[in-house]
């Protein structure tokens, strides 16, 4: 019984050490297995991108930085990969300065792998200040709003922007975000122009999106790295080891560990309550 009671007082340093071990195992062994189950919101996101006509562009609105790279990075990578594979042009704008560097790196590494060309197949608009004017401008006059790309070139002169002017030429907007930027994009960019909006949040932010999924304001969602792993399954990467698959397995082990911790804590709590009641009974008998 003493051991059970002690279970509710495990030193937090022991817990932190165990978290390191639990997370390290999948990060070291790199499991390739992807989820076999794909949730409906990921399916819908896939269908939206898959059906974009070749004469339209997809805008990736990226509001994340290095701190959430483990969740938003795989989402960005898998969407870029799908669009490269389908030959769909896309432009990525970053509302976070550090995030601009990270998303550009993701794009250039995929560009090399899939033999695509910057300025022809994709463009990075660089870091821009997030405000209402910029969000509206994406739908009303994209080249003027973005002006220069990340490398300082005029976007209107890039081949990738041929025929791209306003919302008529945009197939979808994907909001990849670690903070509450969804409503802004919805109100100023997609809803006024009838554009499809996909949402790629971190796991914590995803619970807020279900009301928009239900109302149809958001067409599909990739829920953190798990959603990215499910999306990779849909584009035929279920046997490939990726950051998303590694992160998903790390999440699995961490979740099971936390549930075990909660069970141990409650066992200790129940045991201590029983012991307290027994002591109280013995004291009253005395």
């Amino acid at each position: 019984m003493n051991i059970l009671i002690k279970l509710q007082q495990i030193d937090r340093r022991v817990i932190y050490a165990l978290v390191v071990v639990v997370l390290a195992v999948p990060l070291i062994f790199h499991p390739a297995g992807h989820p076999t189950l794909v949730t409906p919101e990921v399916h819908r996101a896939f269908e939206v991108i898959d059906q974009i006509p070749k004469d339209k562009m997809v805008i990736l609105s990226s509001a994340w930085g290095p701190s959430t790279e483990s969740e938003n990075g795989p989402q960005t990578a898998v969407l870029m990969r799908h669009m490269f594979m389908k030959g769909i042009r896309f432009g990525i704008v970053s509302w976070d300065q550090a995030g601009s560097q990270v998303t550009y790196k993701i794009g250039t590494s995929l560009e090399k792998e899939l033999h695509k060309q910057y300025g022809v197949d994709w463009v990075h608009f660089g870091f821009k200040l997030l405000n209402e004017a910029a969000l509206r401008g994406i739908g009303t006059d994209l080249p003027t709003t973005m002006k220069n790309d990340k490398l300082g070139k005029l976007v209107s002169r890039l081949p990738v922007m041929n025929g791209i002017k306003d919302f008529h030429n945009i197939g979808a907007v994907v909001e990849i975000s670690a903070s509450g930027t969804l409503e802004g994009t919805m109100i100023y960019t997609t809803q006024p122009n009838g554009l499809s909006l996909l949402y790629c949040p971190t796991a914590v932010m995803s619970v807020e999106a279900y009301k928009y999924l239900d109302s149809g304001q958001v067409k599909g969602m990739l829920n953190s790295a798990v959603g990215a792993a499910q999306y990779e399954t849909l584009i035929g990467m279920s046997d490939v080891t990726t950051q998303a698959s590694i992160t998903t397995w790390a999440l699995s082990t961490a979740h099971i560990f936390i549930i075990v911790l909660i069970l141990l804590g409650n066992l200790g709590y129940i045991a201590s309550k029983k012991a307290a009641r027994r002591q109280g009974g013995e004291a009253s008998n005395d």
Partner: protein
Amino acid sequence: MGTTPYANPAVYIVEGLLVFFILYKIISARRGRELFIRRITGLSSLDEAVGRATEMGKPMLFVPGIGGLTVVGLQAMAILQHVVQRAAKFLTRVIVPNIDPIMFTISEEISKEAYNAEGVPEQFDPEDIRYLSSDQFALAAGVVGIMHREKTATVLYFGEFFAEALILAENGQMVGAIQIAGTPSITQVPFFLAACDYTIIGDEYYAASAYLSREPTLLGSLVGQDYGKLLMMGLIVIGAIAVTLVSVAPWLPGLGWLNANFLRYFLR
């Protein structure tokens, strides 16, 4: 095509009614009408939190969130004013780290005014009101450092929070501080619930200034908000019934008009 980014008749009606309820209740409260407000445990325990810091002889920490100069931030400032005034009465320090330079200047003004109001202007230490950084995690690191160095007895979180919420709250737990949190950021509420002693959720946050000051204007506005919520509930019920009737019994008289004029604006 898409929805309009400008107001339509539904907005005029609903927003007009909401504004009317709020202003009407403010006016009637100012005319002396007594208004009831239920107990909000987290806000009632603010005095207990100040008392604990005073007994232990340790400072308090008030974190006004990372939202900047918005409605949420200004509400945090209203709560800060109440807390500092209480603390000033007992000569307890309140440290206020800020992420936004404008909020920093407002915090400084409020703290100075609060100490003046209690007749102890010399107790105000400008170094207790700090601008740490405009970066979210730099602020979190700075606040955690303050908690551990100053061994704060009480930590209050009021404002908009994101990922740094759990970092702050867990470190507050580590130093053994009593913690009270209030935020309209729904996604951070579970973390505050797990780590804080009291948590104020959702629109209770907007009731805080009225609850603490019992000022008639603020109380009236709070009651007006409740009427507004009743209006929302009524619209939801009417809308649910109307949409159901339109699909199961479209032959009912008047449904055509209802569909054309009511549903069209509310369901766009």
